């Protein structure tokens, strides 16, 4: 594991009106790592992801990617810098075909990179089989594959994955997590938000545990898996 800091959040605060959702969190992601953010519903995981992508604006604090401050940028400029976001709930374009969805993933690129498309089809062969089908007619798991594939189409350096296991059959969750590992092996840095702590910690190098807008715990995956607090709260083990 190298220690080149690729991405850094410092003292980030985000609020919805007068309600504080993120109360000053800091975290770093090194180049090539898989880092996971764990937490219960409402802990602020998705808020963090949406703030990184500038779909939400930070109240204070900084978000830096390769040294560049993101908080002053418009949302559509982020993907061009090399951060691609596969959002919670997949958000595929339902009345467009699988292929059109993938092409839109490459919208920020001046021209379509054929090898990336081939790679996405290699990772998720289902997508190639169904490329002419409307995205809205795919199963939940297939839509998740499409959402991840679509976010890879911009050749990102860092991938933000928000709850890829949400509402998906366990067997597909396994397949998708395997492919996330494969994506990481290709050199893409991954920031993964999950409720499924066990699966996420198995995959990730390090993790942060978010609890009502604050970081409650952080460490390597092994440390977190061993910690009583994580075991109690997220893995359902009682001591």
């Amino acid at each position, binding site marked *: 594991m190298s220690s080149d800091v690729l991405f850094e959040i410092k003292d980030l605060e985000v609020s919805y009106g007068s309600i504080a959702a993120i109360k000053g969190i800091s975290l770093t992601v090194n180049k090539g790592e898989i880092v996971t953010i764990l937490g219960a519903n409402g802990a602020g995981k998705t808020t963090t992801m949406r703030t990184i*992508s500038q*779909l939400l604006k930070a109240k204070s604090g900084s978000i830096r990617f390769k040294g560049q401050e993101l908080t002053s940028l*418009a*949302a*559509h*400029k*982020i*993907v*061009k810098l090399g951060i*691609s*976001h596969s*959002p919670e709930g997949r*958000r*595929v*374009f*339902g*009345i*467009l075909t699988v292929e*059109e969805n993938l*092409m*839109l*993933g490459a*919208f*920020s690129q001046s021209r379509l990179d054929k090898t990336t498309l081939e790679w996405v089809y290699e990772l998720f062969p289902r997508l190639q089989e169904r490329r002419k089908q*409307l995205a*809205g*007619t*795919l*199963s*939940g798991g297939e*839509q998740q594959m499409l959402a991840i594939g*679509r*976010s890879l189409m*911009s050749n990102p350096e860092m991938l933000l994955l928000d709850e890829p296991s949400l509402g998906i059959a366990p067997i597909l969750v396994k397949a998708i997590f395997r492919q996330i590992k494969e994506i990481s092996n290709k050199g893409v840095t991954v920031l993964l938000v999950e409720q499924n702590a066990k699966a996420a910690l198995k995959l990730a190098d390090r993790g942060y545990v978010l609890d009502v807008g604050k970081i409650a715990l952080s460490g390597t995956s092994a440390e977190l898996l061993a910690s009583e607090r994580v075991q109690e709260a997220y893995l359902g083990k009682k001591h």
Partner: protein
Amino acid sequence: MDIFLQQLANGLTIGSMFALVALGYTMVYGVMKLINFAHGDMVAASAFVGLTIYTQVMGQATSLPAVIIIFLLSALAMACIGVILERIAYRPLRTAPRLSAVVSALGASLVIQNGIMLIWGPRMRIFPELVPQIYWDFGGVVISLIQVIILVLSLVLMVTLYLFVEKTRMGAAIRAASIDQDAARLMGINVNSIIALIFIIGSSLGAVGGLFIGLYYRGITFNMGWQYGLYAFIAAIIGGIGNIPGAMLGGMLLGLFNAFIAGYISSTWSDAFTFILLIVILIVRPTGILGERVAEKV
């Protein structure tokens, strides 16, 4: 049979004007989920702008290049007004409750309508004869050059728009923004530019529609935007609001429907029948003919 063919020709002419105007409603609705009530008045304004360009800029020339310039300048002027309208009347309300934007749209409609009245006066003006009065008689069915031009040019514009939206990168971006704006932003699509583009396209097509209305009906009034706007709006709903081919189809169907009512029953009843048709369609198929192809899986 003569009445049928004659009304078919008339219906297609009126229908293509409805369709051009309906596209402006449906494209804006598609991306912003907003009914741009000012669109009909923009169409009316275009006829007056065209009239002024004809008299003041072109020195009343009716040569083919002059007519083309009148069309291009009017479309350009309305595109600019459309972009300004979006900036001042709709963008500040983007995150406001939907009703606020609707009220703003109604206000914008009144501003434009009264603006036309202040500039060009409250009385009916006669639109110039930009196209020579040539008629062909096919055994009782009379078709004018104006009708042919309206139909052909509308079809060309609609096919071009369709290909642009379905086959190009920017077209795909428009469709993406109309499905999910946040997801579109994550793809790197600048939604503000897409909305500006929508207003440019919709307003220019509406401008062409307004000039056609002037050419075909000749008399133009400051408040005619309400009437034509309403018909085009109904056409957009019949086709499925937010759906681009739907607006084209809805416009054509409504034009034909109107023409046949006028031919076989009476033109005084065409409004009543139009609304009956609207009600029937809303009951039988609330999403319009081509509305919403699939339900989203959640």
